[in-house]
């Protein structure tokens, strides 16, 4: 029964993460960060485990995971692409770029391409305002973004993106 053993393994990993952080003051955010770093999202099964270990209700834990836009409840694509929508990027053409990138990828914000290569998320400032418009992929911030540069970036990331249906 491979599925059951995978679940047992996942629970053990979750408990290990929770256990190693629960002595911290205000441990919930550090725990959620550690879980998302390990699993790329917060699995539903984590909620009751955290609740039990931190002596919180499931509703409390659930509401915290939903409040913060960074925490995901489902697995993202291979790359998470954050596109800055804030004013300093708008002043350098991010509104048009936003449209072009969505069209190029064939998805909107909070969606993942069909090949699961890219998840697109909005972000409100990457602090790269002096070289806007900005996007972030993983831990790398790219500035002066244009649709042409984005196209080249996709090829260097070796992402086989399905052409958008027009």
């Amino acid at each position, binding site marked *: 029964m491979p599925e059951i053993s995978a679940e047992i393994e996942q629970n053990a990993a979750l408990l290990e993460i929770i256990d190693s952080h629960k002595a*911290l*003051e*205000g*441990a*919930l*955010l*550090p725990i*959620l*960060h550690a879980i998302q770093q390990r699993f790329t999202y917060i699995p539903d099964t984590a909620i009751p485990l955290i609740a039990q270990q*931190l002596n919180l209700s499931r509703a*409390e834990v659930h*509401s*915290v995971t939903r*409040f*913060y*836009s*960074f*925490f995901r409840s489902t697995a993202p694509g291979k790359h998470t692409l*954050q596109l800055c929508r*804030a*004013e*300093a*990027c*708008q*002043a*350098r053409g991010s*509104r048009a770029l936003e449209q072009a990138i969505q069209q190029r990828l064939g998805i909107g914000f909070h969606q993942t391409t069909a090949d699961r290569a890219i998840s697109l998320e909005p*972000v*409100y*400032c*990457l*602090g*790269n*305002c*002096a*070289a*806007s418009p*900005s996007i*972030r992929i993983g*831990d*790398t*911030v*790219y*500035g*002066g973004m244009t649709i042409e540069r984005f196209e080249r970036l996709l090829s260097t990331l070796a992402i086989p993106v399905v052409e958008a249906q027009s």
Partner: protein
Amino acid sequence: MSDTEQQSCPRKIFLSRDTTSLALGAEQVADRIRASEKHRGEDIEIVRTGSRGLFWLEPMIEVDTAAGRVAYGPLPIDQLDETIESLLDADCLAGDKRHPLCLGLTEAIPYLAKQQRFSFSRVGVIDPLSLADYQQHGGLAGLHLALTMSAGDILAVVSDSGLRGRGGAAFPTGIKWQTVHDVDSEQKYIVCNADEGDSGSFADRMLMEGDPFSLIEGMIIAGIAVGAQQGYIYLREEYPNAHSILKQAIASAEAQQLLGNNILGSSKHFQLELRLAAGAYICGEETALLESLEGKRGMVRAKPPLPAISGLFGKPTVVNNVLTLAAIAGILTRGAAYYRDYGIGRSRGTLPFQLSGNIKYPGLIELAFGPSLRTLLEDFGGGTYSGRPMRSVQVGGPLGAYLPAAQWDIALDYEAFSQHNAVLGHGGIVVFDDSVDMAEQARFSMEFCRIESCGKCTPCRIGSTRGVELIDKICTDGCSANNMNLLEDLCDTMTHGSLCAMGGMTPIPVQSALQHFAEDFSKQGEQDD
């Protein structure tokens, strides 16, 4: 240094590892230099620094000369191979000034020479992770001094300096610290608000990436002054580079006994922990931040009680911005009067302004309060990037006013700005050219509030949604008296009925756009005429 000495030790190239420098190609420059070093058989040491904040000249490299550092830039990323080779051929490592990319002495570049760098004096100069470098440039002198002073004396210096909170609210730091000091409590906290969420702001990030020890030193001094032994830095998730640098800096401070028990052999203790936020703008509001640190949703608390009296876990807490804390050590070493002598009116000291958006020369400009906004836009910024006329400037982040040309002569001073219903905030300045549609900007202000509202109070949660709808209506139906009265009423409710600045200040950009750029709101109406 003689020629023979220069050749015997590895020659140094200084190159920034700041987020924006990396976005502009600093890492490719480093890779390329390492490749050249190998095939030329030269011994070159690349020292990674923070950024000088002259972003239109980056990627930029600097080398040491007897007269000071000499800079070369901007290095063209699409011709890096030839450029690096030609720089090495031209003996740029010895500071040869004949290369076409030579910018001369870095500190003589007018953009930098005209600044008053106090908090940013080391940023771009030192290796941010070298404690030795930090000390050679005056670091830790403030802490050594603080360890010999009474709490009352430290508080007096901070008060006398006139330092006010640099996060935007500009509350006098000395009063806040005194309040926390005066509360009798076993447990107190120092919390650094590093959730720099305002668009157009990057000074906190640059400081944390370029001189993290100055922040750590300021927090330790704050702890000594108010009697707190635990500190937290609440850092936004959007800053992965700052996160990595701060993490290493804290580890190294712990290893060198700057943090922990018996700081530098004294009887003082201070623990510091770095905590990561999770993408909620509202957590830059201090009470929401404290909720988040406690492991809860970032919901704003009603004040009072003030965090200084009942803050993190109900304990007396200093919540200060990165730049406030980073200024402390310098204020102690140079004295309150030195700092207070900069600035005008009640705005004392310096503010690191951040110039971005549609601007030719974007960057970080630390100046004493007082010059006009126009000085920054024209003398430093050099006009728009696009070359089109400049039309609108948003100062102080997404909750700041949009200022038309008629208001660019306002002095950069907290009080002067508030007299014009504008805010200086954290010193972020975002420039727009004449292609901007101010109705779209006003709509975005409401939309941003709708997305980022914590939802606790109705004026902000519902008001922002109605605001988006109403601006859409105005753009299609025109500025009828009915629509305008509704918007004014809505803004009034948000301003006076919201729990915090999120809902309370969102009307500022909206109303400034309407007041100064009314022609952008009735496009449909014009077509009908």
